[in-house]
């Protein structure tokens, strides 16, 4: 007997077979970076970039390389790896409309070069993140009533606000969803207390207005507090202890490359406040913690009052970017903010010692020894074969006094000292020491329509401090070519500077010619007539180095101009950028290479029911005038970009997006390293009236690099469904890739609310590859919120 399937059966079948995890934002094929998520970002907001990473690999580190509109240079920031997630917070100074470009560097042990994401041609074809101009974001909600922190009687309470350029909001009063009681008139939303099924007691209350995208994800929210007062009664405010915490335990089993591994992880995040005192802490522990790796466990505990913060543990302190930014340190972090005078102090380890691994040889290596191996001599004279180079314990200290509140004026001085602990490991190679002194200045006029920023820093690095500071008599032998008078001066300088750091022949700079370790940059920002014009000049010497900032581009000087012009009530944004940089700042190279970038973009954020559109073009070139040798550089790249997004209602709430981008690099040298890339992506997210969400994405990628063409298409279809009054949430999806890369991913996950604030989550992913057996990852997580 043949069974006939009902419509419900078919829906259930489709449902359980396809799934998914809500946002597959970037469909680039990588077996290490499974997906990247970025929330909507508006101008001057920190940018959170998170990546889901494959548990099949061990990661030395993952970095985000990013640059703002109109810039050529990519800055780097290290991501914090927690379990299968990596997170980086890009400073708000980089959140400049119209977009930020970025890609990832993935460092795997045993590989010389990091892999990138996207894999193909990331420098020319990085990922793009649109940045919403702040005016647009600030004007989303115009509040009419209540006023901020207004105290009103029950009779007087009225909730009214108008909404610009967004779909219908959800409204919560004291976390209770009252959206269905909102009355809409054009873009005006009103909630009358007499219509609401709640009773508001005397005291503070909170209104939250949320805007969701089609996947149900919160894309923007605003909170507003108000107080209900019953007259004729005295109100006595008492400070009380408030706290919240989240505990999570996870066990993950992976079956990759026919090997089975289990990882167990636990984390606690907690915050509390009592009056003005706030305390926060976090702890992350994993069985991946090993003595031969940099710390995988993380912890931090901190306390703060309005003018003082202090914490101990793993932290990512932020200083002027020539000094320190995006680097983890384990130790003490303090910040004193008095307004007219502020003091930042950091002390801790940026690198943990890892012993050198080696095998002692019975005899000295000879011509029969493997030339691919590294041999060295131990202190006792024996020879050894290097297995893995160790790392010294490296401590770092920063002191930064600053003056001013930073609203209109701020002047700071920074002192950084960092040194490898020579005795921390045996057989370590070339322990180093670094000293940096810097200053920074900010001032603004005319309600910050004019802003000036500048910073400068000078570094000194000793590349090998093992033998300590040089002796006076050694100066004679090392500087034979100099006169006795000059050698005396060196001795005097050495005696002074050795109070600060180790002085010997390995120090950089050895001379002050060309100021190779000097870096400075300044920018002027003018905001008038709907224009935001920024001019930046920078110069970084070829040997400038800060152990707190290891991702800075050296040996570069030049300028950058960007302008953003807004019109039509900020709905239309024109952006232009021009940058001219060159290297060879100390004339030590055979030629100077110039880098030119010209870019323009138009973005339309309609105030009406119409798609938002962004389109842009950029031209960049790198060229020097040397004759046709290995050093010759002569290439140019054209890039075109178009992105459309539209929210509408047809049967359900729909969000459709479309993006097209191309890049074409033409290498005019004999190397002829041309490359072309085309990317097309389409996405449709649907939110139904029942608790069902679906997401369909398709992307086509075509790359031609070194005359080799790679062509593939990735499709993803996901379903997300809630049941039993949202206690059970299910997700499932498939992500096949066709073409030159063939791969398939199937995901299934469930989350169940066992008890109040207590969730259990399960997730299964199955990977099918063309030439290998299927692989799987299964995880089970318990999460408890206090």
């Amino acid at each position, binding site marked *: 007997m043949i069974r006939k399937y009902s419509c419900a059966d078919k829906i259930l079948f489709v449902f359980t077979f396809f799934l998914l995890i809500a946002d597959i934002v970037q469909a680039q094929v990588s077996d290490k970076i499974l997906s990247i998520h970025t929330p909507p970002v508006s101008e001057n907001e920190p940018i959170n970039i998170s990546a889901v990473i494959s548990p099949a690999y061990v990661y030395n580190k993952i970095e985000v390389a990013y640059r703002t509109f109109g810039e050529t240079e990519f800055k780097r920031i290290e991501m914090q790896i927690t379990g299968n997630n990596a997170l980086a917070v890009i400073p708000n100074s980089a959140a400049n409309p119209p977009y930020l470009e970025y890609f990832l560097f993935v460092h795997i042990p045993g590989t010389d070069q990091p892999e990138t994401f996207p894999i193909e041609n990331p420098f020319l074809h990085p990922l793009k993140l649109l940045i919403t101009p702040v005016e647009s974001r600030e004007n989303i909600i*115009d*509040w*009419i*009533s209540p*006023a901020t922190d207004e105290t*009103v*009687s029950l*009779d*007087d309470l*009225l909730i*009214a*606000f*108008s909404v610009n350029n967004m779909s219908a909001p959800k409204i919560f009063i004291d976390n209770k969803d009252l959206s269905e009681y909102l*009355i809409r*008139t*054009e*873009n*005006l939303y*009103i909630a*009358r207390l007499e219509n609401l099924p709640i009773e508001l007691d005397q005291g503070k209350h909170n209104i939250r207005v949320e805007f969701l995208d089609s996947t149900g994800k919160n894309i923007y929210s605003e909170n507003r507090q108000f107080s209900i007062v019953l*007259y*004729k009664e005295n109100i006595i405010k008492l400070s009380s202890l408030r706290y919240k915490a989240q505990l999570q335990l996870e066990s993950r089993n992976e079956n990759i490359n026919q090997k089975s591994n289990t990882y167990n992880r636990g984390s606690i995040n907690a915050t509390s406040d009592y009056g003005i005192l706030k305390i926060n802490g976090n702890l992350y522990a994993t069985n991946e913690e090993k003595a031969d790796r940099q710390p995988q466990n993380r912890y931090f505990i901190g306390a703060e009052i309005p003018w003082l913060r202090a914490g101990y543990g793993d932290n990512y302190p932020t200083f002027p970017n020539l000094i320190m930014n995006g680097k983890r340190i384990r130790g003490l972090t303090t910040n004193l903010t008095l307004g007219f005078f502020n003091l930042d102090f950091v002390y801790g380890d940026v690198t943990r010692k890892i012993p050198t691994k080696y095998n002692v040889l019975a005899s000295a290596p000879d011509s029969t020894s493997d030339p691919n191996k590294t041999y060295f001599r131990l202190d006792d004279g024996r020879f050894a074969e290097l297995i893995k180079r160790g790392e010294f314990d490296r401590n770092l200290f920063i002191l930064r006094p600053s003056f001013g509140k930073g609203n209109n004026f701020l002047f700071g001085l920074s002192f950084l000292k960092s040194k490898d602990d020579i005795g921390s490991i045996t057989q370590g190679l070339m322990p180093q020491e670094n000293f940096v002194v810097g200053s920074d200045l900010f001032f603004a006029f005319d309600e910050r329509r004019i802003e000036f920023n500048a910073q400068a820093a000078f570094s000194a690095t000793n590349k090998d401090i093992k033998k300590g500071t040089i002796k006076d008599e050694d100066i004679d032998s090392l500087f034979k070519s100099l006169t006795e008078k000059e050698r005396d001066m060196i001795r005097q300088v050495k005696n002074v500077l050795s109070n600060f750091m180790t002085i010997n022949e390995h120090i950089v700079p050895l001379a002050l010619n060309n100021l190779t370790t000097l870096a400075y940059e300044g920018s002027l920002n003018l905001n008038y007539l709907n224009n935001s014009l920024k001019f930046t000049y920078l110069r970084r010497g070829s040997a400038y180095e800060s152990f707190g900032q290891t991702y800075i581009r050296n040996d570069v000087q030049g300028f950058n101009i960007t302008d953003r012009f807004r019109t*039509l*009530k900020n*709905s*239309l944004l024109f952006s232009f950028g021009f940058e001219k940089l060159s290297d060879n700042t100390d004339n030590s190279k055979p030629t100077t290479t110039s880098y030119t970038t010209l870019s323009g973009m*138009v973005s*339309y954020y*309609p*105030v*009406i029911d*119409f798609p938002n*559109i962004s*389109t842009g073009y950029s031209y960049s070139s790198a060229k020097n005038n040397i004759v046709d040798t290995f050093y010759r550089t002569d290439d140019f790249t054209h890039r075109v970009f178009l992105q459309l997004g539209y929210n509408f209602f047809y049967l359900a709430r729909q969000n459709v997006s479309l993006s097209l981008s191309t890049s074409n690099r033409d290498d005019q040298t004999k190397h002829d390293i041309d490359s072309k890339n085309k990317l097309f992506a389409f996405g449709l997210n649907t939110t139904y009236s029942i608790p069902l969400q679906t997401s369909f994405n398709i992307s086509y990628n075509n790359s031609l690099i070194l005359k080799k063409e790679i062509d593939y298409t990735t499709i993803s279809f996901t379903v997300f469904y809630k049941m039993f009054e949202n206690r059970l949430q299910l997700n499932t999806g498939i992500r096949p890739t066709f073409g030159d890369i063939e791969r398939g991913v199937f995901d299934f996950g469930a989350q169940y609310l066992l008890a109040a604030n207590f969730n259990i989550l399960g997730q299964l992913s199955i990977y099918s590859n063309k030439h290998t057996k299927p692989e799987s990852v299964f995880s089970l997580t318990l999460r408890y919120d206090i």
Partner: protein
Amino acid sequence: MKTINIFLAFVILATSLTFGMQSGSSPLAVVTKVINSVDKKVPESDWKKIIKGDPLKMKDLVRTGIKSVAIIKFTDKSIVRLLENSELAMLGGKQPKQTMNDMKLQKGAIGFSITKKQNEQYTFSSPTSVASIRGTKGKFHSQEELDILIVTQGIVNLKNLISGKNTDVGSNQIGFSHPNGTLEVRDATPDEIAGCEESLKAGDVRKKNEIQLELRDSDGTKRNLKIDYQE
């Protein structure tokens, strides 16, 4: 060339749609409080009772009866209080480069507290005068024989529509605009200031307080005196 044409078409389309949207009749303000008798009239319909939360659009009329007040709030947090026996017409509206919240006081008085905002201006007009306002507080009173403007904060430009003359009325000053075209300004008296301040609180809930005094008469008998008052 084709690309340029497509781009220009897009810009023209976006521009026309954006301007097209701006001419629509979206709410200008909301009546956040109603005391006693307050009515609203939208074009081509009759007067109807207003309830708290009713939006006001361009060309709407609002009127108050005896001992009645309507508090009208705008999205820029400006507040207009329509005092008793008054009638106000909402004239709008937004222009490409600035928002003009024009209101015509047909009769009666308003108390106003206007937020200072770039590219935004309020005007209160009567058959005799126009008061152009940015970031000020005060009271505008239209009577048959003259218009009276009292300013407690900021500066208001008062223009007489008969003569075309105009003058600034500053903080704690009072301006008079006569049907014969004359304008005069002088310092406001404390009573006039107090009356204006009272208008700026019209409709607010007054905090009720109670004082209980325990008294003894000549015989030593306890007497309680209870005094209720409003701030």
